[in-house]
C-alpha cells in the first residue's frame, strides 16, 4: 500500500487477519515470509507501526487521558507533555469532559474512541486497525465511519484496516483486498474511487452495490 492510503482487508473469521496485523506490529514472528514498512523489515521489531488490537484493551487502572498517552509515555515523553498534546484531540475524538473517567465508566463506543486516540497519538506513519468497530451496534458503527473519515482526513496517515464487514470496508477505503479462508490469500482487490468526504447514502449508489456484489462473490468463492 502507498502512503496516506486507506486500505482494508476483508476476509472470513479465522483467515489470519489479526495474525497478519500482529506480524506487522512486530509482536508475532512468522515462520516464513517477509513484512516491510517503509522499506525496512518489521519482523520481530515492534514500535514501528501504530497497532490497535481487536479488543479495545484499555488499562482499567488508567483514566481516559492516561490511557491515551500510554504510547508516548513508553517512548519516554514526559507525562505532562504527552497530556498537553492529547488534550486538544479529546474534543475531536468526542471525549471532551471524560478525560478523568475510568474505562469502566465509558460506553463501548467511547472506549473504542479512546483506543483509537491512543493509536493516533503514537505518531507512526502506518496505522494498523483490527476490527475497531467489531463490538459496536449498527447505529454507533455508522456514526463512527463518518467520524473516522474526518479524523483521518485531518492528518492523512496510511491505514491498514481489518474487518469482516464488506460495507464497512467499501465505505471507508481507497482499496479493499479480499482474503480467502485459512490460509488467507488475496483473491481479489477492489479499487474504491468514491470522492471524499463520503456520505451515508453511498450505500445505495449503483457502483457501490456492484462492488459489494463483487467482494461478496470473491468471499463466497
Amino acid at each position, binding site marked *: 500500500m502507498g502512503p496516506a492510503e486507506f486500505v482494508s482487508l476483508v476476509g472470513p473469521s479465522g483467515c489470519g487477519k489479526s495474525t497478519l496485523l500482529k506480524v506487522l506490529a512486530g509482536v508475532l514472528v512468522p515462520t516464513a515470509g517477509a513484512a516491510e514498512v517503509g522499506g525496512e523489515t518489521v519482523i520481530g521489531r515492534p*514500535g514501528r507501526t501504530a497497532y490497535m488490537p481487536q479488543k479495545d*484493551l484499555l488499562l482499567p487502572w488508567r483514566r481516559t487521558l492516561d490511557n491515551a498517552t500510554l504510547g508516548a509515555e*513508553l517512548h519516554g515523553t514526559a507525562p505532562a507533555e504527552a497530556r498537553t498534546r492529547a488534550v486538544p484531540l479529546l474534543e475531536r475524538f468526542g471525549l471532551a469532559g471524560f478525560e478523568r473517567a475510568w474505562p*469502566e465508566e465509558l460506553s463501548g463506543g467511547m472506549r473504542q474512541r479512546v483506543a483509537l486516540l491512543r493509536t493516533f497519538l503514537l505518531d507512526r506513519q502506518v496505522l494498523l486497525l483490527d476490527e475497531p468497530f467489531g463490538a459496536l451496534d449498527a447505529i454507533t458503527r455508522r456514526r463512527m465511519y463518518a467520524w473516522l473519515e474526518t479524523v483521518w482526513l485531518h492528518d492523512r496517515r496510511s491505514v491498514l484496516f481489518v474487518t469482516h464487514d464488506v460495507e464497512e470496508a467499501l465505505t471507508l477505503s481507497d482499496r479493499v483486498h479480499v482474503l480467502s479462508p485459512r490460509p488467507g490469500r488475496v483473491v481479489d482487490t477492489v479499487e474504491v474511487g468514491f470522492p471524499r468526504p463520503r456520505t451515508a447514502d453511498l450505500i445505495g449508489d449503483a457502483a457501490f452495490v456492484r462492488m459489494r456484489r463483487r467482494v461478496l462473490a470473491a468471499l463466497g468463492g
Partner: protein
Amino acid sequence: MTAVGGLRRWAPATVLLVGLVGAWELYVILRRPAAYVLPSPGRIGEAFVESWPLLPTHVATTVAEALVGLAIGAVAGAGLAVVITAVPLARRVLEPVLVASQTVPMIVLAPLLVLWFGIGMSPKIIVVALITFFPVAVSTTSGLTGVDPDLVDLVRSMGARPGQVLRTVRLPAAVPAFFAGLRIAAAYAVAGAVVAEYVVAQRGLGVFLERSRRSFQVDRIFVAVVIIAALSAALFAAVGLAARVASPWHVTNKAEEAP
C-alpha cells in the same frame, strides 16, 4: 455504605453468633459442667473484665509482631512473585523450596527460631513472616502471569521493554491478586504470632494463654481466643479496605456501597 446496607450485610452473621452464644449459655445452665472444663459465656465476660488491666501489654506485643511479620511477609511474597515471574530459572529453583518451607510445622520451627534469635520479638516476627509470605507469593504470581497476553502484545507493539511491560501492565494488573493473597495472610498473622509466643516469650497473648492454662483458668483461655479472633477479623477487614483504596478504578466497588 449506608446504615441500612450495613445492617443487611451484618445481620445474618450477628444472628448466628448470638444464637451460638445463647445455646452455649443454655447448655452450661442446664448441664452444669465444671468451670475448668467449660465456663459459660457470662463467666468469660467476667474474666475479660478481671483480666482487663493485664491485657493491653499482651495485646500490643502480639499486634506489633503480627503487623511487622505481615508487612515483611507481604513485601517478601510480592518480591518473590516478581522474581519468579521475570526469571524462569528462579521459578524452577525457588518453587520447590517455597512449598517445602510450608510443610515444616511451625510448632517444630518456632523452638529452633528461639534458639537462633533469642526470646524477644524477632523469632515471632519471623514465624509470622514465614506463614504470611506464602499466600501472598502464590496469589501475586498468578496475578502477574495471568495478565491478558493481548495486553502485553499491545504495549510491546508500542516498543515497551520487558521492564516497562512489568511496570505498566503486569504489576498494576496483579494488584487485586496481591490483596487477595494478603487477606488470607492477614487472617493467619495473629494466630501465627500467638503460636510462636506459646513456645517462649515475655509478653504477648500466647504468654497470657500459657499462664492461664497452667493455672487452670479456662475462662481466661477463652478470653484470649476471643481477642485473637477479633484481632484477626479486624486485620482481615483492614486489608479488604486497603484493597479498595488501592483500586479506585473499580467502579463496581463503589456501586456495591449503594443500597
